[in-house]
């Protein structure tokens, strides 16, 4: 929050006061400090009193009809919510019958109880390390430092999860939805003699990537995953076919479709592919449809094409997408289209 500074208000008019975040804050959350600030300002500048008073009266009048829910209804909804919560973690009741059971059944029951207790202890122990989740909104990019010093650049509308602490014995593990660029630190496994690498695993939807000190990009959008390796070496394993280990070389791009389980290997320029990190995404000879998909995924807008045909229009050569406005400008000028924006919907039509 900016600090109160009397001098900056000398040239203010009524409308300036109305739009001043500090004066607004005083109306929303008045406290002693701001009361003092404003009264001393008005003492020093009596000529501003009328403007300030008008602004205050104007802002105080901005009220909305409140809608209050029925208190009983809230309680009902709360109870319903709690039963939903319980239903999401089902506990199975044990059935009892009133007949005599042979001795071995009791033995089995006792054994089961011991196993249950042991597994409970185990899960309790595992849960004690808390998970950290970092998420990004549409249009937002975040830099995340992992406990081992590796770094993740998280693209818009994505999430990365990991344990708060990574101790020496454990494999480093990260869960990703959306898109991120990883820069993984080399770590030697202290348990083993020799110079074996400590594992770093990235879990995505339907696959896991094993990393050996590397930088690479994972893009998971709409059931499709693309992995681009910039440096080092990674191994991709799919849940559908855990036996097959796919090794990647720098510059490789693997495209993996969850629905039809196809996997395609291609060559790409990794620096350009991961250009979104600097908010500079390069697309080579993209069709309008490809650009639209990218903009929808990263800016959360609903983009409507007037006809499917204009989606096939192609921009020759590489284009750079720095932000939504630039991208729309390129689309309107290069592809000769009209763009209409209404809240979060963008309509593109041929001129």
């Amino acid at each position: 929050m900016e600090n109160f500074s009397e001098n900056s208000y000398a040239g203010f008019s009524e409308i300036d006061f109305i739009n001043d975040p500090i004066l607004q804050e005083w109306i929303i959350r008045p406290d002693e400090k701001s009361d003092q600030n404003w009264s001393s300002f008005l003492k020093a500048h009596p000529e501003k009193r009328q403007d300030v008073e008008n602004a205050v009266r104007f802002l105080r009048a901005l009220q909305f009809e409140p809608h209050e829910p029925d208190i009983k209804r809230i309680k009902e909804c709360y109870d319903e919510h709690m039963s939903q919560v319980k239903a999401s973690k089902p506990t199975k009741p044990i059935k009892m019958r009133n007949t005599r059971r042979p001795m071995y059944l009791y033995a089995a029951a006792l054994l089961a109880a011991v196993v249950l207790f042991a597994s409970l202890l185990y899960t309790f122990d595992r849960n004690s390390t808390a998970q950290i989740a970092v998420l990004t909104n549409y249009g937002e990019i975040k830099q995340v430092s992992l406990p081992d010093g590796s770094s993740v650049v998280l693209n818009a509308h994505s999430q990365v999860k990991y344990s708060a602490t990574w101790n020496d014995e454990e494999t480093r593990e990260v869960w990703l939805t959306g898109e991120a660029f990883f820069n993984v630190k080399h770590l030697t496994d202290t348990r083993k003699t020799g110079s074996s690498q400590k594992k770093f695993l990235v879990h995505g939807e339907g696959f896991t990537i094993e990393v050996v000190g590397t930088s690479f990009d994972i893009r998971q959008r709409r059931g499709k995953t693309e992995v681009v390796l910039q440096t080092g070496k990674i191994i991709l394993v799919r849940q559908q076919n855990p036996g097959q280990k796919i090794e990647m070389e720098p510059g490789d791009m693997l495209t993996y479709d969850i629905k039809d389980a196809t996997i395609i290997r291609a060559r790409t320029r990794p620096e350009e592919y991961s250009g979104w990190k600097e908010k500079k995404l390069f697309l080579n000879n993209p069709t309008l449809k490809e650009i639209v998909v990218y903009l929808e995924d990263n800016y959360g807008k609903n983009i409507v094409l007037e006809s499917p045909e204009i989606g096939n229009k192609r921009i020759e050569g590489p284009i750079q997408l720095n932000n939504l406005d630039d991208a729309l400008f390129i689309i309107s000028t290069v592809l000769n289209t009209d763009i209409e924006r209404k809240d979060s919907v963008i309509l593109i039509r041929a001129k």
Partner: protein
Amino acid sequence: MKNFEERYSGDYESLYTGYFKKFFNYGRKFTEDNSLIEDSIQEVFLDIWNKQNTHIVIDSPTAYYFAAFRYTLFKNIKLQRRMGGLGQRDDEPVFSIEQRIISSEISEERRQKVQLALTILTSRQREVIFLRFFEGMSYEQIAGVLGITTKATYKIMYRSLSRLKEVLIIPIFIMFFFLD
């Protein structure tokens, strides 16, 4: 935001009740369908509950939950429209205010004028003013709720307040509204 317990020093039920009231009031600006609002609230809380063991690194829990509720409510409103086969199904829901004139008390007069003046703003302009002056959110939080930049939020707010001010200094214009 650190973790679940730290986020809510009180008990879970009072957290639920507090947000329920806020969400209900906010939701009613977009739809009059109470059960649709309630369903959306339940969806958001189930999500909050399921995430209680994860540490979420976000700047403002309030903005985060409002954004989640807004997203869920809009999704459900659109879904309902689609099932009802209404033509305007992909339009964003509109933030509307009721033009209910309660009494002719003098103290109420100015408030009513403002209510009427608010109707000339766009849906987004009204929503920004609501989040700032009713919910008391900061510009950064509002940006988070609407999924836009803080700079854009400043711009929208400036335009809305200036437009409102324009209308409110011409009492005769307002009078016509009243006679209508």
